[in-house]
């Protein structure tokens, strides 16, 4: 079955950006939870969870950064194709 590609580039770009934003939002919620859990753990005297929490948080930030680069690229591509029409 051929993939329908008849939507305008603007709409496709917006869908991709919305998807990336949703992913970033989910990652951000996990990061907020991770920060509060690490802080709670630190204040209750357990200092062994700080390192894994920082590593996971860093990984999630890098993923967010990658998704932002993707959004930026899609945005630029769509704008380029739009002005070229």
């Amino acid at each position, binding site marked *: 079955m051929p993939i329908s590609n008849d939507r305008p580039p*603007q709409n496709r*770009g*917006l869908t991709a*950006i*919305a998807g*990336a*934003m949703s992913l*970033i*939002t989910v*990652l*951000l919620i996990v*990061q*907020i939870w*991770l*920060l509060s859990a*690490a*802080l709670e753990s*630190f204040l*209750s*005297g357990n*200092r062994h969870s*700080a*390192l894994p*929490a*920082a590593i996971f*948080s*860093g990984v*999630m*930030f890098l993923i*967010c*950064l990658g*998704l*932002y680069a993707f*959004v*930026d*690229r899609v*945005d*630029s*591509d*769509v*704008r*380029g194709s*739009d002005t070229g029409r």
Partner: protein
Amino acid sequence: MNWLRRGSKGETSSEPLWKEEFSVRTADERYVTRRQLTKFLVLTSLGMFVGNLWILVRSLFYKAPAYPQQNVAQIGEIPVGGVKLFNYPTKDDHCIMIRTAEDEYVSYSQKCTHLSCAVYYSQAENRLECPCHKGFFSIKDGAVLQGPPSRPLPRIVLEARGEQLVAVEVKG
């Protein structure tokens, strides 16, 4: 801030940033708000990461506090089931010591871990109770039995030295 104006192939846009951000066309404007929101979310993510790093740094450079050694009672001074209040490690830290058996003493911070009300010993129930919000703590280890407190009571480590009971450390 040239990276903000970059195109897909790394070239610099000829239009200034303000023209891109305040686009005339509606479709482009939708892009701008979404891109800005994405940028904001990523910056928030960076903030969360920095927060975790801060906790990590605090953990790495954490120094355990040095507690003083303080005589709190004579052995046999209080009867079985009896209670003595004292202050440790500073005069502002109120503690409670209970003689649970002939040769067994336990001691905890008297400050409830919920909202810092003073806990008292209920001999009938054999537990520590907070009168403010009905938080109950185990007499064995200070663990929460019931109520809003989420953490156990800090335990005061006692040592018997001759006829003296000496507080040496706070745990938890």
